[in-house]
């Protein structure tokens, strides 16, 4: 659980966030400090303790499989930065 191996470039890539060199330096240093603090959790005895994902977990929350009104194509595309023929436009993925 060492924080010394925290690689800001690698994690920023995983997070899909482009950082300037100044941001890398500042965030890297701040996150090192925060990780040092959260390492406090190593002291807690969690032997045999189940994790909590939700305070009041609800399981199998389903609804009837019925068609209900939803956004129209026009509404769904209303905020699109680029659109064509009723679709979102993105850079080419496959040649």
């Amino acid at each position, binding site marked *: *659980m060492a924080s010394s191996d*925290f690689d*800001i470039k690698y*994690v*920023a*890539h*995983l*997070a*899909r*966030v*482009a*950082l*300037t060199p100044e*941001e890398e330096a*500042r*965030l890297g240093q*701040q*996150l090192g*400090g*925060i*990780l040092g*603090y*959260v*390492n*406090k*959790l*190593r002291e*807690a005895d*969690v032997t045999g*303790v*189940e*994790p*909590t*994902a*939700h*305070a*009041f977990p*609800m399981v199998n*929350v389903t*609804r009837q499989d019925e068609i209900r009104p939803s*956004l129209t194509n026009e*509404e*769904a595309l*209303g*905020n*699109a*930065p*680029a659109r064509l023929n009723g679709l*979102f436009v*993105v*850079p*080419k*993925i496959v040649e």
Partner: protein
Amino acid sequence: MLNRLTISQLTTSLAKREASAVEALRSCLDRIRQVDSRVHAFLSVDEHDVSRQAEQADRLLQSGKSHEEMPLLGVPIAIKDVISVLGQPVTCGSRILGNYRSPYDATVIERLRAAGAIVFGRTNLDEFAMGSSTENSAFGPTYNPWDLSRTPGGSSGGSAAAVASDSCIAALGSDTGGSIRQPAALVGCVGFKPSYGLVSRRGLVAFASSLDQIGPLTKDVRDTALMMNVISGWDPRDSTSIPKATPDYRTCLGGDVRGLRLGIPKEYAIGGLEPEVDRAVKAALKHLESLGAEIVDISLPHTEYSVATYYIIATAEASANLARFDGVRYGLRVEGNDPLELYARTRGAGFGAEVKRRIILGTYVLSSGYYDAYYLRAQKVRTLIRQDFLKAFEKVDAIVTPTTPGPAFKIGEKIDDPLQMYLSDIFTISCNLAGICGVSIPCGFTVDPKLPIGLQFLGKPFGEETVLRVAHAFEQTTAWHKEKPPL
């Protein structure tokens, strides 16, 4: 001066035709023109839209609609700009949403409309509700109405400042680790975080889904009960919403607190507590005793882990939730040669420093090789924290704490030290981890400068009624909530 009224005062006035909804709205708009260039509680107000809503409310009032049928008829309610309102922007205090406009109403907005409320202006916040000072807004900070050199807290700082400056009648906020209660404490209003699952979050832009709750910020406890009557209850369109009948929260007002057992956690007696806050809270406890409540010492042994646990779980969930802001379907887009470059450039340009910090931290604690050590361990410690509360609630009916370790801090004081900022949430964070409810109400002021101090009551899961009962009893026998900032 209609803007100064509470919900119950305004609706009484509207019902008697002493005032109209249009007049109430105009008085809030005038107040915004008068003070908001200094306070900056609002990001936008669509004057045309709110005027139409007010005219409609007046027509309904004239046709004989009562506030029994529509409890908020004609009441302007400000909305934290992270809750979707049809046709309106929802900036989340961020540049990344660009000119986004919501294609639908959040469930809480549908409920406000059904109750006749005027869905009013959009209030400022820390970007994506991440912060404790409203300084992380891409559109500039909000200033504390009591001292314009100080923050109003956050992240619902705009909603809190709007209520405290009488620029609206009440407001909605959201609370992930204290974002309703902490700003309420720092501006001297009432801020309520309902139990997890009690208020639908459909239409709330998600930050940390296992912690987020929408709740009201109001001028008194009665108004909180009125707002809760409108916004709480099961929503089949939010799969985390609890299918459970909700009471009429007005019935817990005016109740007796004699014999009620109130717990004081010994772990909350931390070093960093400012003396004036400590004194005000001790005086409040004495006052509660004089009302007949019994003060009981309790222990929440895992308190020291709550901030660390929170910042792992909240950032992990945020990193997943904010993956949707990728420049493809809405908001800002910075072009790239391939999708990866487009995502990274868009997110690099669109997110502010705190959001980047949290997304990167959250990505790290979920990443291969670190998941067990950080995220899974934090979820286990969360179980221990939750068990602490459930055990304590076997002995007591509610828990009393300061809402914050100190009064409002200066703009810029903590912004470069994220860890110090995070530690200011120490008393509010555990409530979200445990999924319980909590309220902050005014309990005093510091002397020089004069700044509000907040008292927090934490209740059992779905123990809203007890919390409101004790908060109301305290408020009705003190005058702190009547003080107004010198704007």
